[in-house]
Structures are given as C-alpha cells and as structure tokens.
C-alpha cells in the first residue's frame, strides 16, 4: 500500500527529530515547570507545546513568562525571535495549493525548523504523496514535541521536591546535536544536488 510506504518513510525521517524534540522538549518542560504548580505546570507545558510548536520561545521565553511579562511585550519578543518562520511557507506555496483549509492550517502550524527542512528537501515528486508525507511527518514530530515538553513539566511538578531534574536530564546531555546533524545532512544532500545540476 502506498500510504503505508509513505508512513514508513515519514517515520524513518522523523527519528532524528524524535531524538531532538523529546530531549529539547523535556528541557523546555523542566524550565516551564520550575516556577509553576502541580496542575498548571503540566497544563501549561501541554498547551504551549501543542499550540506554539516552537523550541526557541518555549526555552528562551521562560524567564520572561516567570516574571509575568505583558502579552504585548511577549508578542513583540516572539515576533523578533521567530521572524524566520515567515519565509518557510514560500517553499510550500506551490505544493500545498489545493489542500483543504483545516489540513493546510495544521501543516502551517507545523512549519517548525526541522519539519520545514525535511518537507522542503523531500525528493517526493508526486503532489498527493508529498502531501501525505508532510501530514504524517507533522503528526509524528508534533507528538514528540508535546510528549517531551509535557513529560518534563509533569516530572518536575510531581517530583521536583524529591529528584533533581538536572540529574534526570544529565545523561541526555548533547543529544540536541541530532538537530544540527539533521540540518547538516539535508544541506549536504542539497549541495550534492546543486553541484549535479550546475554541470
């Protein structure tokens, strides 16, 4: 079945993101929960990871949120830090032209750095198959991020008094390299294609 094959492809491509999102998400969740309470911190982690899907603000924004920065200032900060997102859609405009409204909204929500890099560089030519690939990839990577952030927040909210969260995440130290490695691999392949077409 074509659908199952595309799913396996998306699953395979999402494995480096699994390594990066669960560990980075866990760190973000730990940070988010450091000043929260047992009910709000996990809820906060879940909502922000599901609806923002941005590591930059979930990590860099935490001290400001803890200091109760105003919503307007938070919006400006997000705008400045994440302005790169405004360029990602340009690579997908043509490929997502005839996609239904809600599906397109979901794919747009999931235009994260890693998701975008994989989707834009995907060699799949058939528009229908590429759309399925993007959808599977988005759902998989979204779930990794949500699980990472929420579990980080839950662990700290429930065990924060007992276990040092730094000790828990100590052994995963350095796993965030998987994201850099993913970009390097995609860039290497793009340059290879570029050199071939240049000749």
């Amino acid at each position, binding site marked *: 079945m074509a659908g199952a094959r595309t799913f396996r492809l998306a699953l395979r491509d999402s494995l480096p993101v699994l390594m990066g999102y669960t560990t980075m998400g866990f760190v973000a969740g730990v940070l988010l929960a450091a000043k929260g309470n047992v009910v709000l911190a996990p809820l906060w982690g879940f909502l922000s990871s599901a609806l923002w899907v941005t590591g930059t603000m979930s990590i860099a924004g935490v001290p400001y949120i803890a200091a109760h920065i105003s919503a307007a200032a938070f919006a400006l900060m*997000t705008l400045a830090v*994440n302005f790169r997102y405004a360029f*990602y859609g340009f*690579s997908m405009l043509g490929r997502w032209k005839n996609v239904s409204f809600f599906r397109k909204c979901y794919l747009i929500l999931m235009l994260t750095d890693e998701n975008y890099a994989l989707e834009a560089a995907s060699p799949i030519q058939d528009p229908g198959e590429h759309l399925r690939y993007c959808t599977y990839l988005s759902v998989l990577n979204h779930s990794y991020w949500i699980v990472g952030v929420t579990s980080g927040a839950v662990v700290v909210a429930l065990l924060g008094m007992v276990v040092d969260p730094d000790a828990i995440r100590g052994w995963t130290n350095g796993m965030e*390299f998987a994201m850099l*490695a993913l970009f390097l691999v995609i860039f*290497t392949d793009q340059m*290879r294609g570029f050199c071939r077409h240049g000749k």
Partner: protein
Amino acid sequence: MENDALYMIGIVATGFAVNFGLRALPFLFFGARKGPLPPWVEKFGTFVSPVIIGCLIIYSFAGMQWRTASPYLAAALTVGLQIWRRNPLLSIVAGTAVYMALLQWLRI
C-alpha cells in the same frame, strides 16, 4: 491561582497567534490567487530553502558548546559519513553519539 491561570491562557493565545501568523504570512499573500504563482515567488521558494538551512546550521552551532572542538569534530564526521554512505540516519546517529561522548567523557 486564578490570576496565574488567566495569565497562562493569555500568553498561550498570544504565542499561538504570533507563531501561527508568521508561518501563515506567505499563504495569506499568495494563497488565494487563482492560477500559477508569479515566477519570482516560485524561484524564491526553491532558492530560500538551502539558505534557511545554512542559517539554521550556524544558529544551531551557537546552541552547542561552540567554544570547544566537540561540535566541529562531530559535524565533520556527520558530513563526511553523509557524503560517503548517503545514509541520513547513520550520519545523524553517529555524529550525535560522538558529540555526546566527547561532551560527557572527554570534555574537549
């Protein structure tokens, strides 16, 4: 408690609006038009992706222990493996494992 919850809802909604809004911008400008996209938009979309990924690479290095040799050694291994074996998962897992080992044990 109640104030905290209201504040949380406000910030979550703000973050959602800004992040989603930024990602939706190109679709708001060019999504509704009938017929083919202007050629410069097509060209920009193709050209912009390696440039963005190049920037993400530089940006990611800043998040590593970039004053040490570890990320550069691991990056060289990742790229080298990818050129040689063309197996993304192998390149990524090997590069990450080497980075973690360098970082946690050798501390160089």
